[in-house]
C-alpha cells in the first residue's frame, strides 16, 4: 500500500497540464482529408482511367467504388475509435467495418454475376497488388504513426483496421486509374490481397501499437 501511495505521489509530481486528444471523429476526418489529397495527387500524376464518367454509369462499377469508399471511411473512423482505450465509448461504431465489409463482399458477388460474358483478363496480374501495396505504404505509415500517439487497448484490431483503411486508399486509386473491366482480375489481384493485409495488420498492431 505504501508503494501505491509513493507511486501516486510521484505521478502527481510529474503531472503537468495536458492537451486532451482530439475527438476520434476529428482525428478520422484529418486522416481522410490527408488520404483524399494523397489520392487526388496520385491520380493527377498517374491519370484517371479513360472514359471514367461512362464507367461510373455502370451500376456495379459505381457500387464497387461507393462501397470501397464507404469501407475506407468506416475503417478510418473505426481506427480512430480504436486508438482510445475505451473506444471513446462507441463500441458499435468501432466494429462497423464488419458491416461495411459484408456490404462490399455482397456488391462484388453481384458485380461478378453481372460480368457476363466475362470481360477479358488483362495481361498483367500481380503488378496490381504490388502497385496497390506501394500506394498503401504512405497512408499506412501516417495512420500507424498517429495511432501510436494514443493508447489502444485493442492494438491487434487497430493495426488490422488501420492497414485495411490504408489499403482501401490504394485499391481506390488502382480502380480509378487502371483501364480494366475484368471482375475476376479485380477480385483476385486487388481485393483478395486485402485479407493478407488485414492479417499483416494484426501483427503490425502488436509490434507498433502495444504500449
Amino acid at each position, binding site marked *: *500500500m505504501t*508503494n*501505491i501511495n509513493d*507511486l*501516486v*505521489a510521484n*505521478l*502527481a*509530481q*510529474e*503531472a*503537468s*497540464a*495536458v*492537451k*486532451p*486528444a482530439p*475527438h476520434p471523429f476529428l482525428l478520422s476526418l484529418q486522416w481522410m482529408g490527408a488520404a483524399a489529397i494523397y489520392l487526388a495527387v496520385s491520380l493527377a500524376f498517374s491519370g484517371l482511367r479513360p472514359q471514367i464518367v461512362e464507367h461510373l454509369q455502370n451500376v456495379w462499377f459505381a457500387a464497387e467504388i461507393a462501397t470501397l469508399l464507404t469501407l475506407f471511411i468506416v475503417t478510418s473512423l473505426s481506427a480512430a475509435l480504436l*486508438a*482510445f*482505450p*475505451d*473506444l*471513446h*465509448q462507441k463500441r458499435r461504431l468501432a466494429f462497423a467495418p464488419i458491416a461495411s465489409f459484408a456490404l462490399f463482399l455482397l456488391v462484388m458477388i453481384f458485380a461478378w454475376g453481372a460480368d457476363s460474358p466475362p470481360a477479358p483478363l488483362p495481361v498483367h496480374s500481380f503488378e496490381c497488388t504490388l502497385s496497390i501495396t506501394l500506394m498503401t505504404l504512405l497512408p499506412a505509415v501516417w495512420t500507424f504513426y498517429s495511432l501510436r500517439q*494514443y*493508447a489502444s*487497448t485493442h492494438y491487434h484490431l487497430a493495426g488490422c483496421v488501420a492497414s485495411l483503411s490504408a489499403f482501401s486508399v490504394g485499391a481506390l486509386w488502382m480502380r480509378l486509374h487502371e483501364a480494366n473491366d475484368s471482375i475476376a482480375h479485380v477480385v483476385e489481384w486487388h481485393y483478395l490481397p486485402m485479407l493478407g493485409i488485414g492479417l499483416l495488420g494484426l501483427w503490425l498492431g502488436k509490434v507498433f501499437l502495444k*504500449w
Partner: protein
Amino acid sequence: MRQSLAGDQRAYVELLQATTRLLRPFLSKRLSFSSEVDDVLQEILISIHKARHTYDGQRPYKPWAFAIASFRLQDHLRMLYADQLRHATDFDELEESLHEDVTESAISYESISKEVEKLPEKQATILRLMHQDGFTAKEVAEKIGMKESAVKVAAHRAYKVLKERLER
C-alpha cells in the same frame, strides 16, 4: 479528471487514490495474491497516467479507467501463463528421460513388497503388476485403462518414493 488534466496536482492525487479504491476489489477478485494485486495496480496507475490525454472529461471516467485496467490485467495474466508454460515440463521430455524398460530391476520385488503396499493404491497396483506378475508397461496400461506413458510416469514416481524410503 478535468481538473487534473489542467495540471491540478492535488486533484490528480485524489483521482488516482479514488481509482485505486475503485480497482482494488476488481483486481482482488481476479488475482490470487495481494502482492500480485499491488503490482498490477501500479501498472494500471502508470498506464492511466500515460494515457490521460485520451480522456477528455466529456464522457464517464469509470469505463475509461476500467478499459485500461482490464487491458493491463489481461497483459499480466498472459505473461503469467506464458511464463508458467515456459517452465512447465514437457510430457514428451519426461517420457524420454525415463528408462526404456521400467520393468527391469536390480532388486527383487519380494524384498520390497511391504514398502510397495504402503504406496498409493494406483502406484502399488502398477508395481505389483509389473514386477510380481511380469506384465509390461503397455500391458499394465491396457489392464487398468491408463495410457502407457502415464503408467511409466506413475512407476517412475513410485520408484522415486521407494528409493527415498529404502535409503533412509
